[in-house]
């Protein structure tokens, strides 16, 4: 494939990526979220169920930011989102099913 074909091909599947400034802003937010996530471990008197909830929320936010901005799913064709989110939902269901089958509710039952 020559360069003009590559450019056309690129135009065919890319609907535009974020700017470098956006990438840096996202990285700063990721760093702040990580700092809060780790810092929450050292908050005295924080109940375990609140700690687990906080960690799960911050982890999910970080995951979503990387997928949406760094992996460009926010800007790309929705078919790619379906290709990734479909198996991700199945994977989450697998985790919950295995935990239920083994009676492993330790993750949320503490505190």
């Amino acid at each position, binding site marked *: 494939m020559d*360069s003009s074909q*590559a450019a056309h091909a690129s135009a065919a599947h890319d609907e535009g990526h974020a700017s*470098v400034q956006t990438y840096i802003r996202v*990285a700063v937010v990721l760093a702040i979220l*990580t700092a809060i996530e780790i810092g929450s471990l050292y908050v005295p008197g924080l109940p375990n169920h609140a700690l687990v909830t906080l960690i799960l929320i911050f*982890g999910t936010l970080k995951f979503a930011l*990387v997928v949406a901005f760094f992996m460009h799913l926010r800007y790309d064709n929705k078919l790619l989102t379906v*290709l990734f989110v479909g198996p991700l939902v199945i*994977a989450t269901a697998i985790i919950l099913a295995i935990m239920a*089958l083994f009676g492993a509710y330790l993750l949320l039952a503490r505190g």
Partner: protein
Amino acid sequence: MSAEHAAVADNPNIGCTGLDHRKMGMWAFLGSECMFFGSLIGTYLAYKGKSINGPGPHEILNIPLTSVSAFVLLMSSLLMVLALAAVQRNDMKWGKIWLFMTAVFGAGFVGFQIFEFTHFVHLGLTLQTNLFGSTFFVLTGFHGAHVTGGVIWLLAMWTLAMRGKLGPQDSLKVEICGLYWHFVDIVWIVIFALIYLIP
């Protein structure tokens, strides 16, 4: 039909969906990887707290050290998108620098993991010690192998760039390599939260 549409129609890499097969294939692969790591994470959580002998996670996991390595991997994702942006705008000088730095950060993460594994073995935790050891080493070991593969891929891209064989016309190759790299990062975000941070 416009000239642009004709060029796209003539491109064997563009299918009836209008998407590039290579990029779509990578996303399908990453989808299958979600289920692979989902199974390993599910197994770890199912056996959590069920080891009949020690050492257990609370006695052995070093959260401050792993926080540093997790942060290194997270920031390598920023370097990867900076590399892609540089290649796309034909700034190959910075493209090479960011690609190499991403590989260095990835290698740093693998170094942290080798140190951690060695330390755990010295403390008496191996694959055979207990359920925690088996599930922990299999899960984090497979992740480490993925990161190692990613570092090799990044170094291959960097070598191509150094030889002048990687330019803006190859930005899709860098983007696909980046998709894989970001994926190993998001898997670690999940592993770090579920295995290291949750008590």
